[in-house]
């Protein structure tokens, strides 16, 4: 039997370490185990991609200008893939500083540039009522129509100036920094999607008999749900059962089954013992 472990970590272990610990439970029963670390964004994404060769991850912070992202990109010109984490705070200039910083710099044609976004920002519009300026102007109960309109007009001018007069869906992700990434020929993907592409997960899925998600928490408030959705979607793609093991599980089996996870098991503090019990159940 071949088991594909997708690990976002456990409460006190990183993705790789937690995945290896859980995977040992199946390996001890004589099964083959493959491990893919998963990350949505932030430290989890950094942990997940740290072992993948030829990948550079940039994690911008809040601020007025994205020029520092441009400087980091220039330093990373020889990397095969550059990921820009857009899931956290991002600068306010929709990539204008990034593009100015890279003006005249020849990016290698084969280099892949990916903005990593939360799944709910995959299609985030740059402009309009649901766009970056409107979201910013109306944040925290604000109601300044004028600020929304002038901000939207400035973003429309920038998009036009950089050759994207009709910004594609997703350009509004990461406070609009995705626009700059797209202007450089980049794309936006979720963390699990980009990790899946980087490790060619299709090949692992084709060879696997069971998908096991490892996550710190699965709860009805949303923790671990994005990871669970990604794991379940891959399992469905390979027509495989998907189970989840987490340090804490606070979501009903019925809810988990609505997005394709067969069963979830709480590991508690003694991970090897709990994981062995699950491995004996899900073993053939």
């Amino acid at each position, binding site marked *: 039997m071949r088991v594909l472990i997708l690990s976002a970590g456990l409460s006190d272990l990183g993705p790789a370490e937690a995945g290896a610990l859980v995977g040992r439970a199946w390996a001890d029963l004589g099964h083959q185990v493959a491990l893919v670390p998963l990350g949505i964004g932030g430290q989890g994404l950094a942990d997940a991609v740290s072992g993948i060769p030829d990948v550079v991850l940039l994690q911008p912070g809040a601020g007025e200008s994205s020029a520092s992202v441009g400087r980091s990109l220039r330093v990373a010109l020889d990397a095969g893939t550059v990921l820009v984490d857009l899931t956290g705070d991002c600068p306010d200039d929709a990539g204008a500083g990034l593009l100015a910083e890279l003006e005249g710099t020849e990016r290698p044609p084969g280099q892949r540039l990916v903005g990593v976004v939360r799944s709910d920002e995959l299609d985030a519009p740059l402009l309009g*009522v*649901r766009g970056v300026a*409107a979201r910013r102007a109306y944040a925290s109960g604000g*109601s300044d129509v004028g600020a929304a*309109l002038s901000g939207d007009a400035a973003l429309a001018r920038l998009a036009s100036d950089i050759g994207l007069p009709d910004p594609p869906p997703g350009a509004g992700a990461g406070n609009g920094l995705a626009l700059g990434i797209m202007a450089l020929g980049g794309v936006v993907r979720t963390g699990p999607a980009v990790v899946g592409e980087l490790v060619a997960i299709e090949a692992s899925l084709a060879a696997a008999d069971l998908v096991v998600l490892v996550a710190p928490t699965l709860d009805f408030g949303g923790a671990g749900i994005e990871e669970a959705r990604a794991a379940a979607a891959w399992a469905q793609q390979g027509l495989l059962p998907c189970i989840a093991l987490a340090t804490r599980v606070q979501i009903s089996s019925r809810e988990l089954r609505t997005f394709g996870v067969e069963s979830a098991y709480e590991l508690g503090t003694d991970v090897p013992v709990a994981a062995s019990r699950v491995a004996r159940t899900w073993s053939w």
Partner: protein
Amino acid sequence: MTDTVTTTTTQGVILTDIAAAKVKSLMANEGRDDLVLRIAVQPGGCSGLRYQLELDDRSFDGDVVSEFSGVKVAVDKMSAPYLNGAEIDFADTISQQGFTIDNPNAQNSCACGDSFH
């Protein structure tokens, strides 16, 4: 309740006579006759979008302005596509008080009546 509409149009918003009278009285309370009723759509609320109504003395590029019984109604260009054909009424009954918006573009509304998508 009378729902007579002074101007019938499928473009822009529609303000009923009752709502226009209410807006006039609100402007009179403020001692102003140079204000417009601005209706805008914002991101937010439990259904993703919500309405904002205010008396405004500003005008913005691209505003769609219509006049109903002497009351000007302005819709900014970002909100206009979401409000084509929306009817603003004013209700003053035991079960409902205040301005109401019947928007044919809304696929769903929240129970609070303030949010739609």
